[in-house]
């Protein structure tokens, strides 16, 4: 690891002043991704500003019936929280589907939102990567891409977002609260991440120096009927090759409302709006579920070695919807 400085402010204003004052400063949450990337030489911050002493370790009820989660909340605490498990089970399941117990004990909600892609070229500093070094090229299209994007990629980048948690947050229309140099801002998760287009190095819409303070989960009573499913190369401890977070509101055999988000298929947690649209008001049948999945996936642009993701994700969506019908 290259040398760097370390600070741990106790007050948000200090943290924001520090990040504004030092070139190359970065916020540090649990460090489970950032420290790893520093070992690989992918990240070389001049100063780490540890934000875990800030007063952001909380889970509280919002007045509107939603839930508010502080950005410093450890992943293990989030997954174990009773309100999360009861009211947003897909979120608890998504968090538990990631990493291992020891890492979840360290990892924070804010850090999880900002974790970086596990694209092999991004993580290998000896290889070109437009995300790591703009305009250096992308070997993934013709190279190792069997776990890269089938939706939302650009010619410059087809890396996928690795977060399980963010897929569930996308399904629940979470809102991310940030402090930016210009002041506080509430960013709907749909506007939080950005597609690579011609700037793959920019992954979010945050201003430089932004500090995530909390995530709000809006009230959604039928989110209690939600589920996160993850397919991976192995039963445990690996990143998804495809995942879905689904919440279903079904009555009298008809879909009243539905939320579907997909993971490991796009550079962002992919909200399947087309599938949702095609399902609302339809009978809750396997046929309808298949049509909905197809409505979303017909836009997929798979490459040589990741075609399998299209049927894989279709199957995951359909199976999860069926399970939720059975559970309701």
């Amino acid at each position, binding site marked *: 690891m290259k040398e760097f400085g370390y600070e741990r402010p106790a007050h948000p204003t200090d943290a924001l002043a520090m990040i504004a004052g030092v070139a190359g400063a970065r916020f540090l949450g649990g460090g489970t991704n950032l420290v790893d990337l520093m*070992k690989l030489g992918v990240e070389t911050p001049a100063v780490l500003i540890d934000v875990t002493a800030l007063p952001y370790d909380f889970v509280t009820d919002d007045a509107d019936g939603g839930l508010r989660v502080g950005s410093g909340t450890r992943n293990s605490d989030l997954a174990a929280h009773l309100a999360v498990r009861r009211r947003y089970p897909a979120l608890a399941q998504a968090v538990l589907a990631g990493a291992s117990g*020891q890492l979840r004990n360290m990892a924070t909600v804010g850090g999880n939102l900002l974790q970086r892609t596990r694209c092999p070229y991004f993580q290998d500093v000896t290889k070109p990567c437009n995300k790591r070094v703009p305009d250096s090229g992308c070997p993934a299209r013709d190279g190792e891409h069997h776990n890269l994007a089938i939706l939302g990629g650009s010619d410059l980048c087809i890396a996928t977002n690795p977060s399980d948690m963010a897929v569930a947050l996308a399904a629940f229309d979470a809102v991310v609260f940030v402090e930016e140099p210009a002041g506080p801002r509430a960013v709907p998760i749909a506007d939080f991440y950005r597609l690579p287009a011609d700037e793959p190095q920019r992954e979010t819409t945050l201003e430089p120096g932004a500090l995530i303070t909390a995530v709000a989960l809006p009230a959604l009573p039928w989110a209690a009927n939600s589920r996160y499913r993850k397919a991976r*190369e*192995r039963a445990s401890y690996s990143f998804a090759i495809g995942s879905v977070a689904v919440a279903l509101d079904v009555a009298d055999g008809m879909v009243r409302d539905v939320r579907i988000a997909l993971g490991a298929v796009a550079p962002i947690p992919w909200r399947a709006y087309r599938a949702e649209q095609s399902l609302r008001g339809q009978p809750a049948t396997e046929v309808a579920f298949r049509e909905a999945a197809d409505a979303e996936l017909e836009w997929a642009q798979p490459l040589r070695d990741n075609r399998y993701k299209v049927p894989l994700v279709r199957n995951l969506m359909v199976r999860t919807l069926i399970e939720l019908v059975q559970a309701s």
Partner: protein
Amino acid sequence: MDRALTLNGVEVRFDVEPRTLLVDLIREEFGRTGTKVGCETGECGACTVLLGGKAVKSCMVLAAQADGASVTTIEGLGEPGELTAVQDAFWEEHAVQDGFTTPGLVMSVTDLLSRNPDPTEAEIRSWLDGNLERVTGYHNVVAAVESAARKLKQGDSWKIEPEVVAGDMVGASVRPREAPEMLRGETDYIADVTLPGMVHAAILRSPHGHATINGIDTSAAAAMPGVIGVFTAADLGFVMPLPVIWVPTDVESHWPPHPSGMVPGGQSLLATDRVRFVGDQVAVVVAETVQQANDALQAIRVDYEVLPAVVDAEEALKRSAPQLHETVPNNLCMSAPLGDKAAADAAIAAAEVVVEETIRNQRIMANTVEARGAIGSYDATTGDYTLWTNVQPVNPIRLLIALYVLGVPYNKLRVIAPAIGSSLGAKGYLFADGPLMLWLAKAVGRPVKWLDTRSSYPRSTPHGRDHVAHATLAGSRDGKISALSVRGFNNLGAYPVINAPGSPRTLIGQSVTGAYDIANPYYEANLVFTNTSPTGPVRGSGRAEAIYLIERMIDRYAGEIGMDPAEVRRINMVKPDQFPYDNHLGWMYDSGDYPGALDKALEMVGYDDLDARRADSRARGKRLGVGIGSYVAAAGVGPSAIMGSKGLVSGTWGSAYIGIEPSGEVSVTTGAQPHGQSQVTTFSQIVAQELGVPLEAITIKHSDTNGALYYSQASYGSRSLSVEGVAVYNACQLIKEKARQHAAHLFHCPVDAVEYGPAKVFARFAPDQAVMTLQQIAFTLWLGWDLAEGMTPGLEAKGFFDPPEFNYPYGTHVAIVEVDEQTGHVELVRYVAVNDFGTVVNPKVVDAQSHGNIALGVGQALYEAVRYDETGALLTDSYSTYPIVRASELPSFELLRTVTPTPNNPLGAKGAGDVSNPPVAPAVVNAVCDALSDLGITSLDMPLQPHTIWRAMSSASAGGAAGSGGSASAGSGGSASAGSGGSASAGSGGSTSAGSGGSASAGAAAAAEPAGAAS
């Protein structure tokens, strides 16, 4: 900046760079070495500590992040010298083998039970996914967690008196004597060894698969802070490359040269003008700190000229292939036939049914959580060298380094192995780094330490398997096999490893008939050099390749004739009345009931009643598959003369020294070298049984060439108990005999009238008057005041054992899998293993070995593969790119042991260490193929990753099953080579038509293979 934390309840201050990791702070600054380092990337969990009461991986936490926090390490658990309930449960359940990963597991489980006092098995396994384990198969660990949960609910009442074993010691599952210190984190491994004045080495390795070295500029590196010296091959002078000592002498072979002219040559300590694989050692830096040595490594400039590379054995035999060694035409080390080819060909020509298949056993690595290391030291006053290194064979490498590498007097070199964090065979070699550290220690005048890292491990340590076989099996329509003919290709990598070239013909070739009576077997071993890491034995070595091959072929044949694969096995197995059985390839099977083990295993899984189970799976979108793996595995290396006839230049007898101290305690030195097999326990049990002394009175010494033994042959190939253990048994008999003789002298009676009883001798005619304790006998022999004519003083003896034959453990394993139709994911839902290891000294120890064997085999079948691209670049150098099996990927195993003693040693014990690995991978692959058989899929190449299976299923259902005789075959995808699309293609590529022994022609018969197979 001054910081503080509470470490194990005591506030400590520290001032380190922000880039210092918490694990380094704990180990280096505070000297708490119970916290281990396995990967540095947060995957293995060996470094787990409690931070603020919660388990975290201390290699993923900056020391600064712990400022102000409370940190608990393994040393901080419970009261000093005692065990917590969790630790005691690990001990009780034999959840500890080599102990390296144990502290991390204990810390992790301590956290789990503090927040979930009553976890389900699924919750336990899911939580344990944060801790990698390579030897227990997690089976006993899960049991320990369940036991610990029970203990914790009992308050302090679980603290019972130490167990007392009544009756026979042999056959009792006594708790491992080695375990308590491991559970407390007190056992020192190579990383924990520090010598006064020690400095640190870092080795520069080739990044290229094949290149010439035009020049090396070390000047910038030499000028960096803390650097003591930078060395290249030019500095080494007369230091020789590694030797090879197992070479079949009856066939033509070609080798890299060795300056001694006595043996073939292997890898050089530092490459001279050319590098031949990613990892070849190029230069070495010695500096005051590890960080300084690593920093200086970056400043060495090597002028490489990259050459074309070849990574596949059969490709390397083609005339156009890059040539690795001038002395090895066409990269062919040897082509060694075994068996009667003409008879096999004739039987195949006359057969009703002929099945051809290419069987690929991919390249794997031991990838033990503890990596390797070495410390060299040199005493300029005496000229004595000492090497500390975590290898299995301290005495053999002492001899080889002295004689063939450094050229120093044998009696000026001492080799010591600290505790070893498991080996799985891959710490069983002579490595280039050990002698290099000795040379450096003399050159710089200080002890020099080198410690490997996870990412360097696949570059520094030989890999295993990488065996391709074109097999032809012939038989009748009613299920009787008449012939098996195999052309095998072993990828040796860039250089031959000390014992590896002797293995393919002996351990694979002789074993290919498996448990079956096959009249006309033939095997041809082709050994080929390529631009990859050298390969050698890994747990199950040789026999794993052979059993995988025959067990896959049996299933292919059964499918071809439409017969139940279990019935085909039953028909062809060697029957109990056929022993001793000559398998026509060199083995002489000793004893057993092979069909009996098969039937027991089938009964355990309810083999005849699985239809409902299959239907249930289909209703859930899964396909159920059942696979059988039967095996016989030669163990107990070995009869020295037989091994000699196969070209091994070494004795393979066992030896043991026993001294009864004047105070009555028993000191034993064994030629075995335990590295997780609990031999301190099992050998103590033998001594306790034979001499009638309590376990606590017995000390077992090992792993130091300055011991009581002339030479220790070490532990490998499941030989420890059935060879070295028998030597201990024999030494006990000599002790008893000497005690009786001395007693007879003192009692003034004939020796015949004196009997040995538990820890005493007595005259039969006056057992209450003429009686002396073992201690009294030892004491009087030590005094030497009154000895019979010719009697030597001291009650001590050396026992030896050179077995007349190998021994042959056997059994049948059955795997049941579910394949997810929509994702291709394979879940192992049940695993049943029936094994016969002959007489068993400690059942739980032996079962624990089987658990590890099963886990390793499942890992190979489903996850593991070392991959290179076509330039020789290594693609798998972490636990994420080279995944090893985790707890939630395994079920609890169902084990049954039968006991058929071998007649080949007085204990009746057969080998047990690695022999139950070979049937595992074929059982799992057979099960998956069974699950997919109605799609026309009959063969799949390991590892069976979801995308491999999914593609095979898609292709098969899209294209329909291949025609008769063909097989839908999918390559194991994911390699960087183009076209890993895995189409359904006929996979039979074997040929039996090539001439025997033709070296250059060996490649001509290489068949076109499905693309995308692991190289």
